[in-house]
């Protein structure tokens, strides 16, 4: 028996054979993704599966890999290999042994179904490696789902799922709401989003049970501080329609849970697991100001009723910039009292001109107000950036640098606690930039077949100075500029490595 999930295995050992066979579905998280908190998707699915009377077990193989590769250099090397940043690793034998252990464990548990959560395209390689070993040894049904079943964005062609199905490595791929589809599959039913792309979006997110963290809650995730942190999901879709993003096209309607149900889930996790820290995993926490305020007010009232201090819970999420009329100074005070922290803001650029083209619907002046409110109320945030947008001129790029010069004070005082600079703009299927390419005038250089007409290898004939090389240069310059000024950049090394690998492939003609 392998080394993973001692607690679950010990629990299973206490069962007799007939109990053991009752496991309906084993839900797996596969590398590579962040391990700062327990997985969101599999635990959410377990909650729903159990709600419908099935048995389920969550196993986090991503976490297990991280634990087993305790040498940072080895971990980085294997991680680069699994993320397709490098073509090989000297630790292949070690990786194969780990995969064999996992397969043995899965086969020993003999669930009726195995569900693999392919969180992003970075999980595709490990999914394939696992399934290639698992399939010949396991007689149950295999399901994959998650954004990673499409390589080029969530609204992509589901290419990875279709390929795995064609190769008979899986029995089902699920696109869209997994909560509905997984119950249909367990009941041996077909349906929208099961081995097809015509999923129908659920309009009532409050109907689902809370995520079930019981299998993973005691694992020592890489929590930032010495406390447990749990994911929480409040919505599907987005209220904005940014040109580079596919969320609003994938989810046809912005659907959200009530503020009260979110607050109750947090309180339940405090009661059950003693957890006070949460991170919202959906695209925006303040998509519905009505329900956002309801959440904040419910929490503040609950703290008071229970003689707890303000900000007893702490929670992060993705946040959109709203003007002062939509989100007032009082709202920021309420955010602080309720315990908001580390809001991820898609700032993207310091140029109003570029941001207007992106359809972000906010200006630098409005951003100044928001960040000022964050600083004043001791809230903090994280910026997500894109350098090298198709319309970006040198002056627009300089505007971004200027913004970071102006905002250095917010890096120093801990208001802006991190930046994600990305790996330059990749034009993905399902985005306005891709779908309306002719309208926008972008010419993809590598367009020998449809499947490859995406990614970073594009040029805008109306902005010829913005070559791929220039975009890479700006991306590198931006990272150096902000790091020199004390901003903390997250994942910069991986982004740069991936970008340079992609560029190498472009140069070699095999991008």
């Amino acid at each position: 028996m392998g080394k993973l999930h001692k607690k679950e295995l010990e629990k299973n050992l206490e069962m007799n054979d007939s109990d053991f066979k009752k496991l309906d579905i084993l839900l797996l998280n596969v590398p590579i993704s962040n391990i700062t908190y327990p997985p969101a998707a599999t635990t959410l699915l377990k909650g729903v599966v159990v709600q419908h009377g099935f048995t389920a077990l969550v196993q986090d193989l991503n976490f297990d890999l991280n634990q087993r590769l305790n040498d940072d250099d080895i971990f980085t090397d294997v991680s680069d290999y699994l993320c397709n940043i490098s073509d090989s690793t000297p630790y292949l034998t070690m990786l194969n042994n780990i995969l064999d252990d996992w397969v043995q464990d899965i086969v020993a548990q003999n669930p009726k179904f195995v569900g693999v959560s392919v969180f992003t395209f970075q999980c595709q390689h490990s999914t394939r490696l696992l399934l290639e070993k698992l399939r010949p040894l396991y007689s149950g049904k295999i399901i994959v789902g998650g954004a990673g079943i499409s390589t080029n964005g969530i609204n992509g062609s589901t290419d990875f799922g279709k390929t795995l199905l064609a190769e008979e490595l899986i029995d089902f791929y699920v696109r869209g709401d997994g909560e509905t589809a997984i119950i249909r599959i367990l009941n041996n039913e077909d349906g929208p989003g099961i081995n097809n792309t015509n999923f129908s979006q659920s309009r009532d997110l409050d109907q689902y049970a809370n995520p079930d963290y019981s299998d993973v809650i005691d694992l020592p995730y890489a929590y930032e501080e010495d406390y447990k942190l749990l994911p929480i999901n409040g919505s599907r879709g987005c209220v904005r329609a940014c040109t580079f993003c596919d969320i609003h096209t994938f989810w046809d309607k912005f659907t959200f849970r009530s503020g009260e149900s979110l607050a109750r889930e947090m309180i339940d996790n405090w009661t059950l697991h003693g957890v006070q820290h949460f991170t919202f995993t959906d695209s925006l926490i303040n998509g519905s100001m009505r329900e956002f305020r309801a959440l904040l007010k419910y929490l503040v009232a609950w703290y008071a009723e229970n003689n707890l201090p303000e900000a007893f819970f702490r929670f992060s999420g993705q946040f959109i910039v709203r003007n002062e009329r939509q989100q007032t100074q009082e709202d920021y005070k309420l955010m602080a009292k309720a315990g908001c922290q580390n809001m991820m803001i898609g700032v993207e650029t310091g140029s109003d001109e570029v941001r207007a083209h992106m359809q972000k619907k906010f200006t630098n002046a409005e951003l100044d107000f928001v960040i000022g409110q964050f600083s004043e109320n001791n809230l903090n945030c994280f910026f997500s950036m894109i350098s090298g947008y198709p319309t970006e001129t040198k002056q627009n790029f300089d505007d971004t640098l200027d913004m970071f010069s102006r905002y250095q004070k917010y890096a120093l005082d801990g208001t802006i606690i991190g930046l994600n600079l990305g790996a330059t703009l990749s034009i993905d299927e399902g985005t306005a930039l891709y779908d309306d390419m002719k309208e926008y005038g972008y010419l993809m250089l590598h367009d020998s077949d449809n499947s490859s007409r995406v990614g970073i290898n594009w040029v805008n004939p109306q902005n010829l100075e913005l070559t791929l090389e220039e975009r890479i240069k700006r991306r590198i310059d931006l990272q150096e500029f902000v790091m020199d000024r004390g901003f903390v950049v997250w994942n910069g090394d991986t982004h740069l490595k991936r970008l340079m690998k992609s560029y190498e492939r472009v140069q070699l003609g095999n991008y």
Partner: protein
Amino acid sequence: METIKIKLDYTVIEGNGYPEMKITLDKRLITNWVAGDDNDIEFSAGLNTGDHVLRIHQSNKNHKTDGFRAFELQKIYVNSADLKHNIHNFVQWPELPRWEQTGKQEQWEDNLHLGHNGYLELNFSTPIQEWFKKIFRWGKPTRGQHSSFDAIKEAREKLKRLC
């Protein structure tokens, strides 16, 4: 040498004139002024790496004639960043009038109201970014999420090579 820009926001109480103030950094006079209605003052100084002491002095107050004349620090910005709650790290060293003296030097923490002659003192260090890291909570990437100048250098060299 690192140039540090400091801005102070303050209020004053007039008493037979405004407070006569001076700023010293590591006992070096940076500026002096009469703190009138402007309510803020800004100055810069070049500092070597290491520990430093900022002092905001009030002097020439006559306790018999100048009544409640006082200077009160409201905000301090270093390189435009608000030190926020860290303003309370200032310690006041008052020069009490003879009739209030107890025989030992008074030292008042978290008292930004300088109603006597004396000074408010803040200890800090440079590089200033490192000091900010100590006094504020900065983000710290988890394993596999870090960023380095080495990777920047490597990417730049690779771009040059492949171009």
